[in-house]
């Protein structure tokens, strides 16, 4: 294919025939074709082209670009971090003055950041991004590196610095391809920092300045969610009387509901022993079967996690059981009363078992690690990620909600009672894009708390008789399963 394409090129451009024969031109052609293949999804062919440049045209000026593309392939397609890192490091060591070098530093920083397990990892990543800005100030990678700097700061919880970095991209590189994402990131950082009005304005700038970008519709959802909570002085929710979803027995014995970013509503019904998806238009899709369903959650990669008492469905095809070390060496003990499962951003799997009254951590290969966050017994019935590295744990017996980080360090707590509320029978918990926590209380409706734990609003009274499950849609509307009327209610 490569040879045919090259020949075609020569035939089509006879005036360039003399120039086409040079290794430089051949390497350029291979690179351009490889990038085209990548855009068309022909990834293996793309990789072949890039590797041909490295091995067959080692003295041309395109080797750095080819190595960069190879690194991207290993990172984004094969998820082979080691090979990706090796390719990027080749660029930075062998071709430090090339156009590809800043890109290599950028990717090395991204690799480090996305697998960061400690603050020093984030610092290393920041150093890589800073190198791009300092050594290649006019490179097209600078805005991307700045954007990534913001992400790194945000990962560390340094929201002011994250906003600053994102602001710089929007201010200094408004036409770069990183600008829409950076503008969005800026708004999100401001929202997370509690500057809601400014956040709404900045989300609006995403829509005003980059209306065609993928971030524009997401920005609309964020503005709507923020405006609902903070726009008019106090949160404004109203029951959507026209809302109706479900068919047959799907809304009986519902153990959990979950709205995905794509607005698919999953309903885990123990009556039909399935988790059933409902599309935004209400159409029901094929369900995932399971005995004794307990809860639903989403993994960071977007996979649906369906927790049943004895096993967890990790994605549509992966059914997983869990076991912990037994009392005797070499023995294992299966976990048979699972209540909730969550996959952390670092790839750990946290499993809450009712019988053991503990949460257990398993690594990415599902090897048992230790109790989480500690060995203390607690009846955790729900586990949810808050999107910012926090793990939300609903302690049913204590009637509290704890937020801890990946290492188990406590971040926040919503106590049993506080100003204006009391948690009487909390059964489910959800988190929105801004770390606001929504607690479904069978006796209290749905209580909405800000990240520091301040009660923002209560949805209940005559509208919600027996809240059994809760979820939040991308635009901040709250969906509650009312076990009394066996309906899913929507508050918009």
């Amino acid at each position: 294919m490569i040879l045919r394409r090259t020949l075609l090129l020569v035939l089509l451009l006879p005036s360039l025939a003399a120039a086409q024969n040079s290794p430089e031109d051949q390497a350029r052609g291979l690179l351009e074709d490889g990038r085209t293949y990548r855009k068309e999804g022909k990834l293996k062919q793309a990789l072949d082209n890039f590797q041909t440049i490295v091995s067959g045209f080692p003295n041309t000026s395109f080797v750095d670009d080819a190595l960069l593309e190879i690194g991207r392939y290993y990172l984004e397609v094969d998820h082979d971090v080691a090979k990706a890192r090796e390719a990027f490091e080749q660029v930075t060591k062998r071709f430090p003055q090339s156009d590809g070098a800043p890109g290599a530093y950028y990717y090395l920083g991204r690799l480090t950041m996305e697998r960061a397990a400690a603050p020093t990892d984030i610092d290393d990543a920041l150093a890589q991004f800073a190198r791009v800005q300092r050594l290649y100030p006019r490179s097209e990678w600078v805005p991307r590196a700045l954007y990534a700097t913001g992400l790194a700061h945000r990962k560390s919880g340094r929201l002011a610095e994250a906003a600053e970095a994102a602001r710089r991209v929007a201010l200094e590189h408004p036409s770069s391809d990183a600008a829409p994402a950076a503008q969005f990131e800026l708004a999100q950082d401001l929202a997370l920092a509690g500057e809601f009005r400014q956040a709404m304005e900045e989300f609006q700038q995403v829509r005003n300045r980059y209306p065609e970008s993928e971030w524009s519709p997401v920005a609309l959802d964020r503005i709507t969610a923020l405006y609902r909570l903070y726009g008019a002085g106090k949160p404004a929710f109203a029951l959507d009387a026209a809302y109706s979803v479900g068919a047959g027995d799907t809304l009986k014995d519902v153990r959990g509901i979950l709205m995905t970013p794509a607005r698919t509503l999953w309903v885990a019904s123990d009556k039909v022993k399935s988790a059933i998806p409902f599309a935004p238009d209400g159409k029901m899709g094929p369900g995932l079967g399971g005995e004794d369903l307990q809860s639903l959650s989403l993994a960071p990669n977007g996979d649906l996690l369906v927790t049943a008492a004895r096993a967890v469905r990790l994605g549509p095809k992966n059914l997983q059981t869990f076991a912990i070390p037994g009392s005797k060496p070499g023995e294992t003990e299966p976990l048979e009363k699972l209540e909730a499962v969550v996959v952390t951003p670092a790839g750990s799997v946290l499993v809450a078992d009712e019988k053991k009254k503990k949460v257990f951590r398993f690594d990415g290969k599902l090897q048992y690690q230790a109790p989480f966050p500690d060995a203390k017994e607690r009846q955790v019935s729900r586990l949810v990620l808050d999107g910012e590295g926090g793990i939300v744990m609903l302690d049913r017996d204590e009637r509290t909600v704890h937020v801890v980080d990946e290492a188990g360090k406590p971040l926040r707590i919503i106590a049993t009672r506080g100003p204006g509320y009391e948690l009487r029978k909390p059964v489910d918990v959800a988190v929105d894009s801004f770390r606001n926590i929504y607690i479904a209380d069978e006796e209290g409706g749905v209580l909405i708390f800000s990240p520091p734990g301040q009660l923002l609003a209560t949805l209940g009274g005559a509208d919600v008789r027996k809240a059994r499950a809760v979820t939040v849609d991308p635009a901040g509307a709250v969906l509650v399963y009312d076990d009394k009327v066996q309906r899913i209610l929507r508050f918009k």
Partner: protein
Amino acid sequence: MKMALPRGLTLVLALALAAPPARAQETAPPSGALSEAVQKELGAVQDLLARATAEFEGPQQSRSIVQFDEIVTRLEVLHRQGTLPTRGREILSTAYELRARAYYNIGLQEKAADSFRSLVQLNPQYSVSKEKVSPKVVDYFNSVKKALVGYLAVSSSPAGAKVSLNGDFLSLTDFFPLEVLAGEYTVEIAREGYRTETRTISIAPKATETLQVELTRTLASAFVVTEPAGVEIWLDGQLRTTTSGTPGPELLEMVRGKGLDPGRASGRTELGNLSLGSHNLEFRKKCYETVKRQIEVPEARDYETDGIKLQDSVGSLQLRSEPPGGRIFLDGEPMGITPKDLDAVCSGKHRIEVKHTSGKFIQDVVVGKDESLTLDCPIRPSLAYLGVVAESAAGERVAPDVEEKLIENLQKMATLNFVPAPRETVDRVLESEKLTRKALLPGGSAEPDLVKKVTEKLAASLEVQGFLIALLPGEKLQRTAVLHLLAAGNTVPDTWDVSFGESASYMRFLSAVDRKATLYRPWTGLITVDSAMFEGVPVLRVVPGSPAAQAGVQPAEVLAAVDGKAVKQTSDLLAAVEGKKAKEKLGLQFKGAGGAARAVDVTLAETPQEIPLNDPSLLYNKVMMDLRQQVEGYPGTETAAFARLNLAICAMHFGDFAAAHEHLLKARTELPARPGLSQGTALYYLGLALERLGYKKEAVDAYRAAAGFKDATLFNNDGPSVAPLAARRGGN
């Protein structure tokens, strides 16, 4: 040389001296026609004459004869060739006289007589000075002469005719008897406008022949007096003469009789040599209406025309420029500073130039009689084209063709004056700093400070604001040129590739050049957000002091329609505002909480706008030229202040934080202190610039000062607040 003539012929003498040389023999060739050889020969002979004369006056006078012989021999050669000029004739005459006298003094009277005869044949009117020469020699000379010459007197009616003997001019009539060599002659009497008369005469030695000739007129003359004087008279499309002078006392009555003012009228001017028939006359003078007449000339005589009075033909010009303060040049003459009214501008075509430090305006206009013409003179920056630089020998070969194509296409620029720079001027300035054109380009040898200095010098010299250089890269196929556009005083050009054979690629460049950065846009001060909760868009905030604030709009109101059109998202509102201008009204319809509607009219204001720091579609050097025009054209105004802020941003785009710092220091005092883009904005950017320059403490001070401006914004009056950003950077 004094001519010995009878007393009664004094008048003739006066006329003769006033006329071209009165000789019967050949005339001297005009001095302009003297060849180099003749001049050289003349010079040599003159030297010889001096030596010979010295010898003549010395004790051995006879020795001078040989020298005089040589002079005679050499000059006679020229004489026979017809190339002997007037001066040569004088030398030859002197040589003959002195040789003759020398011969006489040594007793060789025959030889003396020969010399005298040659002398008289050369110049029949020659006389030997009685004061300097002995009477015997004088008598001897006269006796020789008498044997050779006769006398001729010619009179004509009218007088003033040229008399020629055998084609050689003699004198103007009427003249008393002149000495001529005895012989047969054809006498020609000619006067312009008259038929030439010819007579044949024979003149004997010592005899006097007299001719009286009636001349027959063949052409007419017209006599013209004009008011004013200095009027060109065009006859049948050809310029014949120009009236001048003033009427003499004897003509005053006649002039008045013609209806003219003697104080302004010309003298009586002859338009001679009019052939019989009909003629078209035009009387033209700048700033006067042309007068046309037809004259009939049935016979050859003098005609007296009516007085020709020309009427003023002037108009006026009112010149305004943006920016004002430009120096006006009308047909190259300085006429003041814009805005200016120019009265009494001659009707007709004029070239108007208005030169400003930030650019110029050039236009040709036609002003009609009594027309009052108002001309807006938008000043455009000028871009000097410095030429083509080639990186290879192949490029050198095609450079002239490329240059031609470039100039042809780039002259179509609409917002800049495209000026091919005089090569010598550019070379001189560059050579004074030992630079080439290539050194001004990126990767060139020159230091940035030197590039800055040289471009400022060139700009002053050429009166331009920017430069364009085309680079032909060293590629195998010579198809592209890289255009480098550089504002004066800047060091980093914008570059643009053109395929110099394709017009379309120039069009893209010209579009980019002619694009003006948006510096102001209409403004309401209304900040709305999109939300799926409402049909319209809720108001999030209202900028204090803005048009929306003045109209009483409140946050949380939901905007449902603008000018009757439903608003579904914020972009609908923005589009409606963008479609209007400042001071126009915008009708807003709000939907209340209970469904009640409220209508509000907002009078739009204007918000200044920052240039984006990095916009690949902008040519920042061109933007800088436009901004400098604002700074230099409107000093002390907010327009200039905002332009300076944007100049700082342009400087930051190029990484020139020192220049940005300079601009911001001025901008921070010139900008207003009110909500929106203001002093706080400049202070924030000043902090950024100081930080990049390494002045950390000064940067922090600037940020802290910026944080004190609570309502200052970035980007435009609706943009993000400076205070929290500055507070964070200032360590608050």
